[in-house]
């Protein structure tokens, strides 16, 4: 009898703790950190895809140079835009820093524009257009631009969820007590038209 009473008392504590835990997670105490992690993961995917695009460019430029070296201004514009975009030091804090985020976004948009012009110019060179290496690079570039669009969309959605959680009930309670250091995240503002992949005809 005494044994079962002690046993009951011992077992009651973890059960209470578990119930308290359930109660707390039920009212969204974990939402802010988990939405934050999810948005950060989406952001690193955005960065990966932009990096992947930057990695494709040197090869693309070499290939175009082989057939259309006289298009110097366009080629140089792409090289400069790529250098500018990759020179921006990317830290995880960028998503909380409006200035840095704007700079990053503008540099990438500039590179998109320069690349679009390069692809448009290469339309004038039939030999380049039928070069297998160029075709492969071109399809990879298209694919990467599309992946960037998807990654950006996912990031925008994740940030929307996170920022909404910070400002709506019950998240706003936790945001003002437990997670005071959590700030709303920055998101992309340019029209999606700018991020459309350059249209290419074969």
């Amino acid at each position, binding site marked *: 009898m005494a044994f079962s009473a002690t046993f009951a008392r011992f077992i009651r504590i973890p059960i209470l703790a578990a119930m308290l835990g359930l109660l707390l997670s039920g009212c969204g105490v974990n939402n802010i950190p988990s939405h934050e992690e*999810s948005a950060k*993961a989406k952001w690193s*995917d955005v960065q*990966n895809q932009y990096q992947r695009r930057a990695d494709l460019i040197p090869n693309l430029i070499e290939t175009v140079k082989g057939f259309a070296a006289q298009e110097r201004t366009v080629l140089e514009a792409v090289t400069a835009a790529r250098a500018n975009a990759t020179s921006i030091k990317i830290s995880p804090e960028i998503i909380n820093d409006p200035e840095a985020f704007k700079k990053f976004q503008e540099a990438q948009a500039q590179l998109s524009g320069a690349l679009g012009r390069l692809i448009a110019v290469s339309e004038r060179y039939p030999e380049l257009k*039928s070069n*297998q290496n160029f*075709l*492969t690079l071109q*399809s*990879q570039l*298209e*694919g*990467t631009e*599309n*992946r960037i*669009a*998807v*990654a950006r969309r*996912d990031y925008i*959605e*994740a940030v929307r969820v996170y920022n909404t959680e910070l400002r*709506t*009930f019950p998240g706003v309670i936790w945001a003002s007590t437990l997670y005071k250091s959590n700030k709303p995240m920055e998101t992309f503002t340019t029209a999606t038209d700018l991020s*459309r*992949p350059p249209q290419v005809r*074969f």
Partner: protein
Amino acid sequence: MRRALLVLALLVLALLFGASAAYAQTLTFPQQTGRVTDDAGILDSATRAALVEKLAGLEARNTDQLFVVTVKSLQGYAIEDYANRMFRQWGIGQRDKNNGVLLLVAPSDRKVRIEVGYGLEGTLTDAITKLIIENAIIPRFKANDFPGGITRGVDNLVGLLLGENSAQNIAAQKSAGESKAIPVMAVFLTIWFLIAGWIFYMMHRRGLGGGGSNYSSGNHSSSSWSSSSSSSSSSSSSSSSGGGGSSGGGGSSGSW
């Protein structure tokens, strides 16, 4: 008491607004009818049956899910966007492998796309899907032979997914059509594809391996995309509905 009522009213309002915001950007997909969904009505029943059999055979052999969908309209969306949203909504591919492929045809917009799930980006690279679209599909679509183009495209995809056809062969088909003296190029391309495929594969295993399931679960929690069919979540993997796979925009598109 009044205050409680006010709070309650505000909550109800918030719910209503949430719901209306979710409905504002509704994109409706056609009713999914198994692995082949011919909403545009361009496939005859014999072709359709043959396709269904091929696709079921593929999934039985290595669990890769290839879906063929024709739509009446893209509802103003770019085909890349539409295909990606449909892919995720239907959850094509197995959840843990993300090994789905979607061949989407929009005859009225004269657009076609092969959307590749995360797990197959190494096998079906952007370059090879582009070749399939340009060489196998579009020439037949131009001649209004939709069943032929789709069948040929599916054959190429299935061959690659089962390892029975190689990127080399598919690249060579084009070379043969254009000029004779290209074997060197074909060899170069094969090596290139192999290396690229391997790199993608390795990148994938490291970088996105954990991300894959993350994406699909994130995708299920977002409720803003409603579909006219809710079958994707209700039935289990044994049937012909999606297994919960996700895609990040891999693949290629073309128009004719």
